[in-house]
């Protein structure tokens, strides 16, 4: 088996807690050391929290790549209001919800690849990848 995909529905923080714990587990199983597995779990937590904060629900997909290059891909997807200003949303301290404003900018720092696709009134897809070194 070279790849494993798990799609999880996210509607509330209970779902987020379940998804981040599953992410931690899958990362550890793939061979990530605990600090890196923890980072994956926190990225899932931040992206999942955004789904619960700003939209009526979405999904978090965790994909493990177990080929010659090992890693974990997290895809957070929703059909919410979209992010009007992605550049600002990626700035430390920028928040429209009264939070610390570290959710997206901080998550980007915790992984190797980070991409946001967002269209206003259509939805948002955030893809984050962390490679196993």
């Amino acid at each position, binding site marked *: 088996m070279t790849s494993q995909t798990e799609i999880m529905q996210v509607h509330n*923080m209970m779902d987020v807690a379940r998804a*981040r714990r599953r992410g931690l587990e899958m990362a550890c199983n793939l061979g990530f050391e605990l600090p890196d597995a923890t980072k994956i779990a*926190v990225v899932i*937590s*931040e992206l999942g*929290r955004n789904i619960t904060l700003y939209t009526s629900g979405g999904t978090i997909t965790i994909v493990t790549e177990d080929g010659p290059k090992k890693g974990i891909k997290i895809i957070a997807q929703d059909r919410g209001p979209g992010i009007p200003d992605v550049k600002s949303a990626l700035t430390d301290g920028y928040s429209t919800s009264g939070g610390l404003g570290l959710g997206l900018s901080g998550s980007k720092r915790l992984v190797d690849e980070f991409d946001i696709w967002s269209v206003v009134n259509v939805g948002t897809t955030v893809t984050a990848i962390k490679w196993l070194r």
Partner: protein
Amino acid sequence: METTTIHKLENLLLVSVPRDLMDTEVLQLRRQVLQEIRRCQSQLVLLDFSQVDICDSFFGRFIQSMAKMAELMGAEVIVSGLQDAVVETMVELGMTLPNLQAVLDLDEALAFSRDNHRAARPSEQAETGQLENVAWADDLDLGAL
């Protein structure tokens, strides 16, 4: 949710923070701690994070606000038990939690608490200018007697 335990030990309020707290439970815990600070007249709160293995920015904000609120009640929040994987993630995420005192374990927390309590007595206030807040809380205690 695993139950949160809050114990009073000498001048110290010991709070063991459970893992996987839901957001509403986090806010509930904060209120509970503030109530206990008032009830026990504690000047020092130890948040023990040894059970916590995932700490995201919401949780970081909780620690920050908890410390700020306790300060306004004349108490100080110190933390212990943060795991290496947790602190590495917190700092890289951008949560530096400035001005937050951390101790290694309960023994160190108790020593810190005893030192602080001694230093905060009004008679010794002049020598320990940085502990004005704690001294002020002590003055209030004396006034209430």
